[in-house]
């Protein structure tokens, strides 16, 4: 396309070929695993041990090291899923379809974790497990969107058709993403406003911010690992009758 360096274009072009993707992601996996373990170890140690307690909440605030990165991931993965869906719809690239549907369960899991950890924190801090304010409600809708995508995909037998349907559903749901992010600014909510993701300087002390960002990067790597693993399985299922897979199986004995 335009404005994209040639080498990047070539990389994506090669990745779109199933045998190449399968081999490359297999080689990548151990590295991703090591980086994830290092980051999550550093993030958890920094967040649970090194970071000071909060002036108001004491140690209870430490749940943000799981809650906030999970909530970020729930939005990030949805955007990735919708973007892969568009690429699948427009260019009919099989691998984009596979990446889109493989993202959904990971995103659903992160959304669920964000909702549960928020609820656990809400009881002692707010005084309630759940309220129907704009932020909490829109995040719950996000969970239902993920579940809807997964259900729709498994309801249609022809996986190429299923992928198109899923991409359209994912696109319709994209409208929810800015609503979730800006809900705390557009409306009065019980949920507090953004601490880090705003134009201003973050309203969190640097000693608490560093482990938080480390966890956010660690979760990105977890997403890559979980999504690629699912994509490889999905690819094997879809390509079970293909020549390259038969050759691969023969060569591996």
């Amino acid at each position, binding site marked *: 396309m335009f404005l994209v360096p040639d080498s990047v274009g070539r990389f994506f072009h090669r990745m779109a070929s199933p045998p190449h993707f399968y081999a490359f992601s297999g080689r990548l996996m151990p590295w991703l695993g090591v980086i994830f373990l290092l980051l999550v170890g550093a993030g958890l140690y920094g967040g649970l041990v090194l970071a000071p307690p909060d*002036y*108001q909440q004491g140690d209870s605030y430490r749940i943000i090291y799981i809650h906030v990165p999970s909530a970020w991931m729930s939005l990030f993965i949805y955007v990735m899923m919708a973007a892969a869906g568009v690429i699948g719809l427009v260019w009919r690239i099989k691998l984009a379809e596979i990446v889109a549907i493989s993202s959904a369960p990971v995103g659903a899991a992160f959304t669920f974790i964000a909702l549960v950890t928020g609820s656990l924190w809400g009881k002692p*801090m*707010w*005084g*309630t497990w759940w309220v129907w304010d704009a932020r909490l409600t829109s995040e719950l809708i996000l969970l239902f969107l993920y579940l809807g995508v997964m259900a729709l995909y498994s309801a249609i037998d022809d996986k190429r058709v299923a992928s198109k349907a899923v991409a359209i559903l994912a696109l319709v749901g994209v409208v929810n993403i800015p609503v979730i992010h800006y809900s705390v600014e557009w409306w009065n909510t019980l949920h*507090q406003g953004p*601490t880090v993701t705003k134009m201003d300087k973050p309203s969190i002390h640097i000693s608490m911010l560093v482990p938080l960002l480390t966890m956010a990067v660690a979760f990105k790597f977890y997403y890559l690992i979980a999504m690629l693993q699912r994509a490889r399985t999905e690819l094997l299922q879809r390509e079970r009758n293909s020549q390259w897979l038969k050759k691969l199986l023969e060569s591996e004995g």
Partner: protein
Amino acid sequence: MRPIKKQRLLLIALMLAGIGGAAAFALKSFNENLMYFFSTTDVVSGKAPGDALIRIGGMVVNGSVERPGDSLLVRFKLTDFNRDVPVEYTGILPDLFREGQGIIAKGRLNGQGTFIAEEVLAKHDENYMPPEVAATLKPDTQNNAQ
């Protein structure tokens, strides 16, 4: 790009614009209902319904919290730094409840303009800092609150 792909991309863009527009109008028309609470100025100026179950939000006024007798009854004033509303609540308050803290109370107004709360929730702000840092900031925030 081949024409057919351009066309697909255009269709997707149109779909997104349509859904975005519809969602924007829907949210705009439900704007009032999506507000989780009224401000204290809304209550004093009569914008909030007088006899219905509503939520009001604001800061607990410094020095206004009193506990008459040895029951669980608490009286305090809520403010949005413009108008104050006196609140009465009987029950256990959340951990974060204190003077200067933002809270949300659910209940009804009585005839005298006092808000009788059935439920009090603490609204946490977005600031996180170690106690030492908070201590150095203390005089500053108190000046802002007054």
